[in-house]
């Protein structure tokens, strides 16, 4: 799975996610990526989120929407909200991670797997990229 979240000059947030799904999934299986709220979410008031991992768990726990909801209703930062949701996934044996950006440009990239390909960029800086 791949995904991106961006905040533009107007302060608008957008999220995109794309995938081939799981290796040897059943033909006809639909994962979390195209399900808005599970693998993809964006709202200017809170954040944009894109997920990757075991899609069945992302669907059952509405992972990306949950990150935004924690910010909206609990007043958590994007880092706190994303970390809590991904840690919650781990507790139910759901493997994966998210990338998220809030409207102020704060970035979160938590994951509970051995690695996650990820990176971020801001004005006047070189791209920052990571695997482990």
């Amino acid at each position, binding site marked *: 799975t*791949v995904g991106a979240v961006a905040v533009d000059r107007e302060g608008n947030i957008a999220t995109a996610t*794309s995938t081939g*799904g799981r*290796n040897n999934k059943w033909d006809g299986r639909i994962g979390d990526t195209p399900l808005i709220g599970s693998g993809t979410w964006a709202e200017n008031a809170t954040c944009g989120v894109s997920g990757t991992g075991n899609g069945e768990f992302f669907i059952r726990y509405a992972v990306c929407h949950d990150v935004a909801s924690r910010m909206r209703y609990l007043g958590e930062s994007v880092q706190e909200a994303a970390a809590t949701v991904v840690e919650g996934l781990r507790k139910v044996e759901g493997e994966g991670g998210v990338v998220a950006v809030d409207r102020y440009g704060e970035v979160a990239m938590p994951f509970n797997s051995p690695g996650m390909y990820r990176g971020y960029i801001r004005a006047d800086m070189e791209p920052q990229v990571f695997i482990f």
Partner: protein
Amino acid sequence: SRFYSVIHGGVGTILRTNFPREEQEQYLEALRTSLRDGFRILESGGTAIDAVEAAVRYMEDSPFFNAGKGAVYTIGGNIELEASIMDGSNHRASACTLLHHIRNPITLARTMLTTKPPVPHVFLGGAQAEAFARDKELEFVEQGYFYTEKRWKQHIEGLEYPPSNSESKGTVYGKSVPRDHDPNPMG
């Protein structure tokens, strides 16, 4: 003038010690290029929607990631792709799934989001999604375009009943081939 972009290329199950440094650098460079593609749009005053489409589109075209070229196989030996996009300024979203021949699923989702007159539905799948893409003259490819040796090997190794010719590179199996009905197939 504050604008930002963050991307991911999926989660990895491989340990650092089993991941050659040279291969790691190839992945990192692909991530950098994706970030730059999206960020260039933001720098020039483009929208966040334009930026995320560009960033994801690059990764769909790269054989390193599980999307577009380089995607994993289904248990039946097919490529089935899906994508979604959401605009945080107005809660508009579009998504597509069960795609077999669309080179860039994210561009299909983006086209659904912004086309005039508006698409009345958020989520299209299968034949109807591909018919919409054909109507909008998006790029179609054969299944073989998505093939990579690495993904085919993962597919074969994960099957309980692999085909007799494991070098068949994407051959769709006949219905007589027994299927693995484990709800959590190896992968």
